[in-house]
C-alpha cells in the first residue's frame, strides 16, 4: 500500500493526508463487510433460526428466495421460461455492444428476439401452458420494460429531436417542444399512475389495454423525451459547415440526416444516451406503484416472509450487485463505442 501511495505521488501534504484517510476508511469498511459477509457469515443452507442467533450474514435467504426474486409469481415448474428469457436478453445486449454489429440485421434480430421473449413468457400452446401477464415478475419484467423502452424510445427520440429543429415546419416543431416539456415536467411515477389508473376511466368500458403495455408505452414516451434532448445537444454541436456542405451537394433532408448529421451527432452524445439508458434501467422499478412485480419489488416482497425476517441486507446487496452488473456492462459498452 505504501508503494501504491508513493506511485500516486501526492502533490502536496493535504492530498497525501486525504489519500491516507480515504484508504483507511475504505479499509475499515471493507474489513467490516468481509467480517460480516464471510467470517461470521452463514453458509447457503443454514436455517433462519440459526442465522438470527448472531449478527453474521445469512446467505441462505438467497438460496431460499432467489427463484421468487428472479421470476416473481411465475409458476414454479415453468420458471425455466423466464430463465431462458434472461439469457436471451444478456445475449442480445452482448451482440449489440459492438459497433461492428450495428447494421440493419441487428434491428431484425431485436424484433425477432423480443417476439420470442413474449411468446416464451406468455405461452398458451402445446408444450407451453398459458401464463397470464399478472403472474409475470422479477428480472425478466425489468429487462423487458427497460430494453423495449430503450429500443423504441431511441428512434422516437431522434425524430422528436429533428422535429424540434425543423425550421420550416413550425407546427411540428411546437408539437415536439410541448411533448418534451410536458414529459420532462412530470415525474415518471405520476405518468405511470395516470396511465394505469386514470386512463381506464376515460376509455370506453371493455376496451382495456394490458397493464404491462400501458406501462411500457409510458416508459417509452418518458425515455424518448430525455433522449431527444440529448440528441438535440449533439445536433447543435455540429458545425454549420457540415449542413452547408451536404446542402451544396444536393443531398435531400433525409439523406443529409442519415449519412452526414446523425452518425456524427449520435456519436457525440453516446455518454449521455447511455446515462439515460442506465437511469431507465433502474427507474423501471417504479412500476411497483401500479402493482407490477419488477425485480426490486420481487426482492421486497420476498423479504416479507415471516420465517425470514431481518435479512434485508443480504437481499438488497444481491439485488444491488445485479443492477450494478448491468450498469457496469452498459458503461463499458459506452466507452468501447466511443473509442471506435
Amino acid at each position, binding site marked *: 500500500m505504501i508503494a501504491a501511495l508513493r506511485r500516486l505521488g501526492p502533490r502536496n501534504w493535504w492530498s497525501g493526508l486525504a489519500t491516507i484517510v480515504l484508504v483507511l476508511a475504505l479499509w475499515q469498511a471493507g474489513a467490516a463487510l468481509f467480517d460480516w459477509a464471510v467470517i461470521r457469515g452463514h453458509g447457503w443452507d443454514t436455517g433462519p433460526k440459526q442465522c438470527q442467533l448472531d449478527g453474521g450474514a445469512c446467505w441462505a435467504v438467497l438460496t431460499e428466495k432467489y427463484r421468487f426474486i428472479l421470476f416473481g409469481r411465475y409458476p414454479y415448474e415453468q420458471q425455466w421460461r423466464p430463465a431462458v428469457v434472461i439469457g436471451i436478453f444478456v445475449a442480445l445486449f452482448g451482440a449489440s455492444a459492438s459497433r461492428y454489429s450495428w447494421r440493419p440485421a441487428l434491428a431484425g434480430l431485436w424484433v425477432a428476439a423480443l417476439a420470442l421473449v413474449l411468446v416464451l413468457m406468455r405461452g398458451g400452446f402445446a408444450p407451453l401452458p398459458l401464463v397470464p401477464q399478472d403472474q409475470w415478475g422479477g428480472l425478466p419484467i425489468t429487462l423487458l420494460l427497460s430494453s423495449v423502452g430503450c429500443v423504441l424510445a431511441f428512434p422516437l427520440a431522434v425524430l422528436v429531436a429533428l422535429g424540434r429543429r425543423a425550421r420550416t415546419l413550425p407546427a411540428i416543431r411546437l408539437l415536439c417542444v410541448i411533448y418534451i416539456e410536458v414529459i420532462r415536467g412530470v415525474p415518471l411515477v405520476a405518468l405511470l399512475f395516470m396511465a394505469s389508473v386514470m386512463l381506464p376511466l376515460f376509455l370506453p368500458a371493455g376496451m382495456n389495454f394490458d397493464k404491462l403495455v400501458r406501462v411500457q408505452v409510458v416508459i417509452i414516451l418518458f425515455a424518448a423525451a430525455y433522449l431527444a434532448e440529448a440528441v438535440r445537444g449533439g445536433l447543435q454541436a455540429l*458545425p454549420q*459547415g*457540415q449542413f*452547408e*456542405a*451536404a*446542402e*451544396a*451537394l*444536393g*443531398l*435531400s433532408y433525409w*439523406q443529409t440526416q442519415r*449519412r*452526414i448529421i446523425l*452518425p*456524427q451527432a449520435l*456519436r457525440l452524445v453516446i455518454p449521455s444516451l447511455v446515462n439515460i439508458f442506465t437511469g431507465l434501467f433502474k427507474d423501471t422499478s417504479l412500476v411497483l406503484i401500479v402493482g407490477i412485480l419488477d425485480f426490486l419489488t420481487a426482492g421486497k416482497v420476498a423479504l416479507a416472509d415471516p420465517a425470514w425476517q431481518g435479512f434485508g441486507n443480504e437481499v438488497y446487496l444481491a439485488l444491488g450487485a445485479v443492477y450494478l452488473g448491468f450498469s457496469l456492462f452498459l458503461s463499458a459498452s459506452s466507452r468501447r463505442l466511443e473509442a471506435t
Partner: protein
Amino acid sequence: MTGAAIVMEHVRKSYGAHVALRDISLQVASGERVVVCGPSGSGKSTLIRCLNRLERHDSGQITVDGVELTDDIAALRTVRRHVGMVFQNFNLFPHLTVLQNCTLTPMRVPGIGAAEAEALAMSFLERVRIPEQAHKYPAQLSGGQQQRVAIARALAMQPRIMLFDEPTSALDPEMIQEVLDCMIELAQTGMTMVVVTHEMGFARRVADRMIFMDDGQILEQGIPASLFDDPQTQRLRDFLGRIVHAG
C-alpha cells in the same frame, strides 16, 4: 452549351438591418472564369452563397443553369447537383473516408453501382493527385490535401459550374500552390468558375473577368489586367495596395 450560366438581376440581401448585397446584377457566361475580390465584409461570400441558395436573397432574380432559384426544393436540388462548391474550411465529412466523401453523390445517381461510383470518385482523386489517400480520414490529411479532396468531392457530382469561396485562405502558405494548381487545371477544362480569392497571381492567370466588391456592391469589373494596372476608384487602389503589401 453557350449563353449565360448564371444571371443575377437586382439581387438584394440583408441580415436584419445590415445590408449585405445592394442591387447586384451580374451575368456569367458558360465557360467563363470570374474572380471576385474585395475587402472583408464586402459581401463576397453572401454573393457566392446566394448562387446555390445557401443564402436566400430578399429580392431580385437569380437564374442558374437555366433554372430560377425559388423555394421550389426539387428544382433547387437539381440546380445544386450541377453546381459544385468549395468552402474556405473544406467542410469535409470527418466520419467518412476520403473515398466515401467523394462517392456520396455519384452513388445517388440511379443505376450506378458501388464499384462504378468508386471508380468515378477515384478518377477525380487522381485528377487532384491524391488517390493514395483514398482510404484515410480527412483529419489524417494536411490542409492542402483536404482542400483538394473537397474539390474532388464537388467534381464527383460532375457539375457544370464550380463555386469557390476563399479556397486557400485557411491554408498554410506552402500549401496554397498545390490547391491553386488544381484549380488552374480545372480552368483549362473549360469549367464555368466563380472564385472568391485574394490570390492575384491566380486571378491574372486564369480569370476572364475580375469583379471588385465593396460594401455590398460591384464597384469595378473587367479583365484582370485593367483592374490591376488601371484602377478607377480610390477604394480599389487602397485595396490593391493592402493586398500587395500583405502578399
